[in-house]
């Protein structure tokens, strides 16, 4: 199936669109790191590497072929602090309108009603990586809240706090937002094909800015689709074999 389906006959899957959209957010980066359990960002970084002709360096945690760190678990963090990582990805059980991220749980800490795994490196990397892309497929008022219950990592910092990094964009199944670091707010950039601004408003718990006319999120062209379904599928399949079975176009059995 991998290379047999002519790309020009088949529309992109939802995840192929996400991969393509994230890749666009990485334009101009020199080095992108991808954390654990991040198949879509990983595929996107590998796509952008392919588009850059190899100029973009990609470090995929968990990969053998695309992980060149040799100083243990601390190297990702040291590397970021040295200014050698241009982009990273964070998710969030909750994300609020100021870009605060909650990876810990809902309700009153420590005996949270819902407990998520924990903050991982967010409380550090969000400060140090220039372009942090918030990525969460689920776009609901449960996830995109007015105010997070627990700040794993704050979206903004007071003056005087060392913070070369921070949120750059937020991507969900419905839409793409830019983050405005002056106004500390998200601004809707585009809505994905098949969805509308009203749907985004209905499902977002925080207020955000938007232009009068909200564009549609651009779709990958045929060349990109072929690249995603061929080489990128192979490359990310090394780390996420189960993911590539479902995320990419599979022809008639889709």
């Amino acid at each position, binding site marked *: 199936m991998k290379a047999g389906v002519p790309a020009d006959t088949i529309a992109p899957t939802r995840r192929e669109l996400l991969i393509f959209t994230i890749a666009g957010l990485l334009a101009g980066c020199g080095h992108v790191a991808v954390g*654990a359990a991040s198949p879509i960002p990983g595929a996107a970084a590998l796509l952008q590497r392919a588009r850059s002709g190899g100029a973009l360096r990609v470090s995929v945690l968990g990969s053998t072929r695309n992980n060149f760190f040799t100083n243990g678990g601390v190297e990702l963090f040291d590397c970021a602090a040295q200014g050698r990582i241009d982009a990273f990805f964070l998710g969030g059980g909750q994300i609020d309108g100021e870009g605060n991220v909650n990876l810990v749980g809902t309700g009153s*800490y420590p005996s949270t009603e819902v407990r998520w795994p924990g903050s991982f*490196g*967010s*409380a550090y*990397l969000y*400060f140090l990586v220039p372009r942090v892309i918030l990525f969460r497929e689920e776009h609901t008022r449960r996830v995109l809240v007015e105010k997070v219950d627990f700040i794993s990592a704050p979206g903004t910092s007071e003056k005087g706090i060392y913070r070369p990094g921070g949120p750059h964009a937020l991507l969900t199944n419905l839409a793409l937002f830019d983050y405005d670091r002056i106004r500390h707010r998200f601004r809707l950039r585009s809505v994905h094909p098949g969805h509308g601004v009203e749907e985004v408003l209905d499902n977002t718990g925080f207020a955000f800015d938007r232009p009068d006319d909200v564009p549609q999120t651009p779709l990958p062209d045929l060349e990109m689709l072929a690249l995603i379904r061929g080489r990128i599928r192979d490359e990310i399949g090394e780390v996420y074999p189960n993911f590539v079975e479902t995320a990419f176009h599979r022809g008639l059995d889709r």
Partner: protein
Amino acid sequence: MSEDHIRGLDDLAAAIADGAKLAVPADYSGPAMAATRALIRRGAKHLHLVCVPVSGLQAELLIGAGAVDVIETSAVTLGEYGAAPRFVDAVRRGKITLKDATCPAIHAALEAAAKGLPFMPLRGIIGSDLLTHRGDWKVIENPFTAGDPIVALPAIRPDVALFHAPLADREGNVFIGRHRELMTMAHAARQSFVTVEEISKTSLFEDERLAAGVIPALYISAVVEAKSGAWPLGLWNAYGEDKAFLRRYVALAKTDEGFAEVLTRWPDEPAMAAE
């Protein structure tokens, strides 16, 4: 190796005292699961678990078995198998004291101990609720720039570091390759207990290429051979995780009864997986 009397997993589990501050690596970086089962068998209690910098099934089992009082970690998750049910349950019921951290903070606090320092500064964190709840973390002024606050983390000096590795030699030198956080753990901890797939008859220092990835015996208190010692988790470059077991575990461990069944039926050998 200072603890010559440790010959098997039960000796090793006996040498980890109740109440010990026990450092363990992430599930993907050499978890000593056979030793963890031995710890549960001996009924270990009141452990202060330090996860470097996160944990999964290892923390989950120890918590479920009631062996953990305090857990210091940046996350507990079973990854693609989902949330860690006994961890989540223990949090909800307030059965364990949480010291929620962020990955580089745990690395930095261990490095402080490895350097005999009382603390290590670290960027980031300020404005995170982690800091609000970590009474042991402080914000100090950068002594070289006025008006530049920075977090100071107290050193974490584990009583014991416990992990599994592919290879050691008879002197107690342990190969960890690129998994350098295991070296930091061993430098930081008072004692390090290691299980390995294989014990080499020749010194690991004979091959200079190998030597770059070796923790010297100086830091190792005991090495015990344990084939498939990371099962049901995987070991880098050796074997993968036991997917069937893990799926089954997650389903069973949703209830107290189910978890009790896991503990009861879990044999010393990885036979449950073969059912």
